């Protein structure tokens, strides 16, 4: 009975603690839903800030609207685009928009505030008509090159008779790929869960600043909804849990890399084999590991755009990277920790609150420090509309982990404020891996508690050194920092850390 009493005591204590821990995010940030004009399907495919602080926003049914936060006024800039899923401002009179069929430059040449020229910048990729062939981007590097990401097709349907661009003969015969409805059912498995029979599907393509030269840049993507640069100039691409992805990922993409989803290999120069028939061990050898694995159901189910927090915004988190997610009521904050050229790092929930909601698709910042989030769902999980997030400022505080560094034997966590030593009792560490396989998603593999042999807070209280007996690589280390508070009594914003370890120091 005394043992039961102990268990019961813990239950009651945990319940009491939970009851005492209200959602800490709204105390530090404000969340404001911005009304969308009537008559516009409020699913947002892309948004970016104009130089003057207004926002350019594109919607599900093809409208591009300019929103002025100062006056609350909306103005139509363009319309009729096909499922635009990315927008990049060039100037107040020139926007780049990625729609299903092409990257388009929308220009207002007569100064009336509306685009009159719709210039095709890049359409040198294939379309089979399969609904899942979305197109994402563009992201722009410091030299002005543009990068777009092309979704694979889904075996939820086949392809249309009439396609655009080249067709790869590798895989199921084309006359079977065009089957529809019930006739498609017998073939869909052989097609692959996601497939890339049209050119450059599952690839990131690089365009020269003038748009004239297109270079297939990297492959192995399944559903790369998010493409962007971090503050250090890394090209980041997110990908969605499914076949060949045990969980969702963020990649640091480099030229020539293969990032794990096999369908796009058919477009590698010289590639001849059906990727579904290549031994998994060989594919595993070929692939670049993800910089960050985002545990499904806990952190992210369907990650979206990576965006750098500008200098001077969100206090101590300036220049860090945020990533959206469609399903979870949270964003992800990513802290890279490269070791000897290997990209890896920590993913931490950010704005993990019902006040944020789900469907967080596209993000941008304005000079006043506002984070603008456009939401969509396209009939999947998600939401609609535009949300403005602002930090309440230094007085409200922002107690968070701002550094995670792997060592030889463990990790060093840095905090934005001194930690209350007495609150460290709830720190737990677990480690797990994921399968790399054709099946859809992966359970956590070899999920186990990691014994923390030493746990030391430095004098300043802002650095916590954790040491383990051993530190196996190729694992996700989950740090549970339950109940951790600052010396000033602030709750930790983001009390889970998911560190993808490829290489220790």
């Amino acid at each position, binding site marked *: 009975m005394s043992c039961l009493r102990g268990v019961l005591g813990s239950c009651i204590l945990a319940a009491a603690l939970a009851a005492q821990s209200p959602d800490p995010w709204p105390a530090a940030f404000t969340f404001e839903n911005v009304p969308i004009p009537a008559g516009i399907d409020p699913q947002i495919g892309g948004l970016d800030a104009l130089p003057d602080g207004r926002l350019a926003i594109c919607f*599900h*049914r093809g409208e591009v609207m300019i929103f002025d936060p100062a006056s609350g006024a909306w103005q139509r800039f363009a319309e009729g685009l096909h*499922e635009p899923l990315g927008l990049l401002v060039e100037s107040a009179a020139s926007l780049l928009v990625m729609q299903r*069929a092409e990257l388009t430059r929308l220009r207002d040449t007569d100064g009336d505030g509306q685009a009159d020229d719709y210039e095709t910048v890049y359409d040198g990729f294939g*379309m089979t008509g399969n*609904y899942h062939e979305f197109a994402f981007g563009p992201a722009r590097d410091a030299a002005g090159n543009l990068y777009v990401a092309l979704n694979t097709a889904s075996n939820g349907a086949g392809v249309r008779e009439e396609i*655009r661009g080249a067709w790869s003969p590798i895989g199921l015969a084309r006359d079977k790929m065009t089957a529809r409805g019930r006739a498609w059912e017998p073939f869909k498995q052989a097609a692959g869960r996601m497939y890339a029979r049209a050119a450059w599907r599952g690839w990131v393509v690089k365009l020269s600043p003038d748009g004239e030269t297109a270079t297939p840049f990297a492959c192995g993507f399944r559903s790369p909804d998010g493409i962007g640069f971090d503050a250090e100039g890394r090209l980041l691409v997110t990908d969605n849990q499914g076949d060949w992805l045990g969980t969702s990922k963020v990649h640091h993409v480099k030229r020539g890399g293969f990032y794990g989803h096999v369908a796009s290999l058919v477009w590698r120069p010289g590639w001849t084999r059906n990727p579904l028939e290549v031994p998994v061990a060989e594919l595993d050898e070929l692939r670049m590991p993800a910089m960050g694995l985002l545990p499904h159901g806990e952190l992210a189910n369907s990650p979206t755009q990576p965006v750098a927090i500008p200098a001077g915004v969100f206090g101590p988190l300036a220049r860090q990277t945020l990533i959206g997610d469609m399903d979870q009521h949270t964003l992800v904050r990513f802290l890279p920790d490269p070791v000897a050229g290997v990209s890896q790092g920590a993913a931490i929930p950010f704005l993990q609150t019902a006040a944020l909601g789900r469907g967080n698709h596209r993000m941008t910042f304005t000079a006043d420090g506002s984070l603008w989030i456009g939401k969509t769902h396209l009939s999947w999980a998600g939401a609609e509309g535009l949300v403005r997030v602002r930090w309440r400022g230094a007085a409200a505080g922002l107690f968070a982990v701002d550094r995670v560094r792997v060592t030889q034997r463990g990790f060093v966590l840095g905090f934005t404020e001194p930690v209350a030593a007495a609150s460290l009792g709830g720190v737990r560490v677990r480690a797990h891996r994921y399968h790399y396989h054709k099946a859809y998603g992966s359970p956590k593999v070899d999920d186990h508690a990691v014994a923390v042999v030493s746990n030391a807070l430095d004098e300043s209280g802002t650095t916590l050194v954790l040491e383990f007996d051993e530190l196996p690589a190729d694992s996700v280390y989950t740090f549970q920092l339950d109940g951790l508070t600052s010396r000033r009594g602030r709750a930790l914003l983001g009390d889970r850390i998911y560190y993808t370890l490829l290489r220790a120091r």
Partner: protein
Amino acid sequence: MPDILSRRALLATLAAVATALPGQDGKQLFQSFCGACHLPDRVHVGPSAIEIAGLYRGKRAEFLAWCKAPSPKRKGVIQMPPMGYLGDAKLTAIHRHILASTVGQKEVVVKNADRFRASPSMRRRPLVMRIFMPDAGPAAIAVAVNDDYHYCFDAGACRLRYVWQGDFIDGWPVWRANGNALAKIVGDIVLREPRSPLPVQQSDKRKFLGYRLRAGLPTFRYRLGEVRVEERITPLPGGRGLARRFRLEGAPRDWRLRLTAPVGMTWRSGDGEFDGLEFTPAVSKRAEFTLTLEQK
């Protein structure tokens, strides 16, 4: 703390914990892994918990089997991704939660209609709308010229596909979800061109360059081999039909159009000579000429 609890209270609390924990677990799992698509009381991306409970009450094994290997079941509904990675214990907890949480609940009926059908950005005329269209390549562009005449241009093939008379398109099959459908033409086809009327060779590279809007109507520009083409379709006064203007750069001297017979309409032009459905622009009009498609 336990010392101050009476034995009876302790047992009651224990019983509550014992029954509540798995339920809590199921609820949390449902919210984390299912809740994005399945709402408790109404259809969302997938059926409601109430409907699922109706289908799988007393059928745990069937529920688990479905979760591990879902297949398309309902027309127009997205197929569920396989959830086998959760494992039997978690799926069982979810099943238990679905059954327990829906007892006595009633499904809220959701109307499936296009809320934006009559909105200004859908009803404006003229209107250019890029959307999946029937009988065209995937890079189709639908254009409402006015309240009566509409056409489909194909940015992949760089040519007009067809013209119809009526009330433009119903795009709801595409817009209602993720685009796994085609828009519907509302009206009657009056012209369907099986190929470009310009003498383009199969081997000629086609490149779509974009379009410019003037008075809301697009002037398409594209390249067929070495020839740069501009094509613009505008309404004729009085609702009589359409004018189709071509501007060509780099065209050879013997440039001749092969037109297709329209339905209930006829081709006319003052800019050249017809020989049946073959049209030769006058020498002075080779670089720019207009054809009209008029009601008979």
